[in-house]
């Protein structure tokens, strides 16, 4: 799909980019003002990856996401109000206040959920791929994960099984250079992280993760391959996390200069806006319209979410198990 040169695709992409950015800025603000609880993993600076990737997917394709999952969730089509309500611990949130940011899933968009466990979603995505393969649909599962996840046994086992069975899965690594404080360049002595694929007999691709079109194209190719029954692909999208890992992060493991240089010269949204302007696809006014719409949408979502009833402990014991309904056959 051409995004940069197609008006409606460009508007869609820009809307998604801004929705992610503004949603997370709102979260950061609410947290800072003591209105939000727990911890927080922001993907500001990384918005191009979910945006480009999900535009290569159908609604019925699956995704699995991570602790840093707002972007994936929004890009796959989740409702901002229900997301915000969840973070505000409301009964109307996606998880009814039980999961919070790290566990939002959205059945309507086949988003199988964020995951608090690094690499926890990797075998789950492979399982969704297995399911699609066995059911004979041509659905694909995209597994978003971080570079740090490549250290986990779960990553390995999910990829091993997907490679053996040629499952329709795209393992999409958001390489933001660090797993918390561990530099992935130091952790994995590879020329590029996508060389990891060579150990598994699947294609490995590196892509500029701050370029919506580039991410989209890499994922589109991998998805086509997967739908054709040719198996999984490992894509590494190079990007950068502007904020700390979570609120406890003092950024001691990286320099202020490094952060500044990415913010200033490699902002995925600024880059996308520049490219669509240069291509003549959108005007400054078009862009402003998108921004305004997102701002209004988000404002409404926050307001409605904040006004919703708080989650209550009633019924928690009954929420542990799905109700059994008797013989399934």
């Amino acid at each position: 799909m051409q995004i940069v040169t197609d008006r409606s695709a460009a508007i869609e992409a820009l809307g998604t980019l801004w929705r992610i950015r503004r949603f997370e800025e709102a979260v950061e603000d609410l947290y800072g003002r003591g209105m939000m609880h727990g911890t927080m993993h922001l993907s500001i600076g990384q918005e191009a990856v979910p945006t480009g990737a999900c535009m290569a997917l159908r609604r019925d394709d699956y995704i699995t996401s991570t602790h840093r999952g707002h972007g994936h969730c929004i890009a796959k089509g989740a409702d901002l109000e229900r997301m915000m309500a969840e973070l505000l611990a409301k009964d109307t949130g996606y998880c009814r206040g039980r999961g919070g940011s790290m566990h939002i899933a959205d059945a309507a968009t086949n988003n199988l959920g964020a995951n608090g466990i690094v690499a926890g979603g990797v075998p789950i995505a492979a399982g969704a791929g297995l399911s699609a393969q066995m059911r004979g649909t041509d659905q694909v599962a995209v597994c978003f994960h971080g570079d740090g996840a490549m250290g986990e046994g779960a990553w390995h086992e999910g990829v091993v099984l997907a490679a053996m069975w040629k499952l329709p899965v795209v393992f999409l690594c958001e390489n933001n250079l660090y797993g918390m404080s561990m530099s992935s360049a130091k952790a994995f002595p590879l020329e590029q992280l996508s060389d990891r694929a060579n150990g598994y007999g699947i294609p490995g691709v590196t892509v500029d993760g701050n370029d919506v079109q580039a991410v989209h194209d890499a994922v589109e190719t991998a998805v086509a391959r997967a739908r054709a029954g040719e198996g999984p692909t490992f894509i590494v999208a190079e990007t950068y996390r502007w904020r700390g890992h979570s609120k406890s992060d003092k950024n001691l493991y990286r320099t202020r200069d490094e952060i500044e240089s990415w913010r200033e010269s490699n902002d995925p949204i600024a880059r996308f806006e520049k490219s669509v302007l240069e291509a003549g696809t959108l005007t400054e006014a078009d862009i402003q319209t998108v921004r305004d719409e997102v701002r209004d949408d988000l404002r409404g979502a926050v307001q409605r979410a904040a006004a919703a009833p708080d989650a209550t402990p009633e019924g928690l014991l009954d929420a542990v198990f799905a109700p059994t309904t008797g013989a399934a056959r």
Partner: protein
Amino acid sequence: MTMQEQRSIHEGLEHPTGLGARPGAETAEMTYAEAIRDALRIAIEADPSVFLMGEDVGRYGGAFGVTGTLVDELGTDRIRDTTISELGIVGLGVGAAMTGMKPIVEIQFSDFTAQAMDQIANQAAKIHFMLGGEANVPLVIRAPGGSGTGAAAQHSQSLEAWFAHIPGLKVVMPASGDDAKGLLLAALDDPNPVMILEHKLLYKQTFEVRTGDVRTPIGKAAVRRTGGDLTIVATGVEVQRSLEAAELLAAQGIQATVVDPVTLTPLDSATILAEVVKTGRVLLVQEAVQTGGFMSEVSAIIAESEAFVHLRAPIRRLSGLDVPIPYAPQLEKAVVPQVDDIVVAATALVKEW
């Protein structure tokens, strides 16, 4: 005693008492392994979303022969050999279960659930709750536990207490062939993850088993025998040892009730407590190591219940010693409760209190 004789002891009894088929259907004689295979065949033939995956379940026929030649009948798609990747196997099961399939995963020895613990405890069991009901995980995990085969400490554990401590996971321990079949079929009806802890020593034993598409209800204990002097609660292979002990006790004039919880979580406390109240004396028998074992939970439930005032004796546990399972046959036998140990413990309880 030769090793061969010792081995045959370890293979257990051929004709357990009180472990026949549940009423209500025709029955046939089959081994515990065959009963499970029968359930697999019935479910997989009836429901296109059901399949089995695990290590060596295909052509090999399963490490304990459970699948046998099932792959010839059902194909490699539905009886699926995996790599040696327990975490991956369970994880793929979770993903498939969330997306319209009903996977059964086999962990070759229950000890290797340690490898898969994240996907069992942190994913499968919690997803429905954490995700606020946005997803279900109708996953069945089968894993053989227990000692008695000379396989030593990493292949002989009884880990049910770990699983019982995980909210969101149902845990069952079939003590008979009929229950092995009925519980597997019931687990496949359940929209929640169910851990089935089979027992290695039972696989080759013959039982009376209901034929056809039957169920053993999850969450319901079975009173395997009744007697007025004491109530024995036992799980897994200790159910049949307790039943055998009860016969020996009866010969000495001591009448024992034997309750098999069948399901550990959610536990049918009501049935257990009712039987405790009747006798006032309790002996809890498990193969697992004592400290932190599931019978500690049963004891605690009794001790804080209304049955407390009916107790005329301390609540006795008879468990595996707090040691890893040793290799040598004489050591292996010594560290888990045998029939004689149950007789001795029960007699002491009744005589002293």
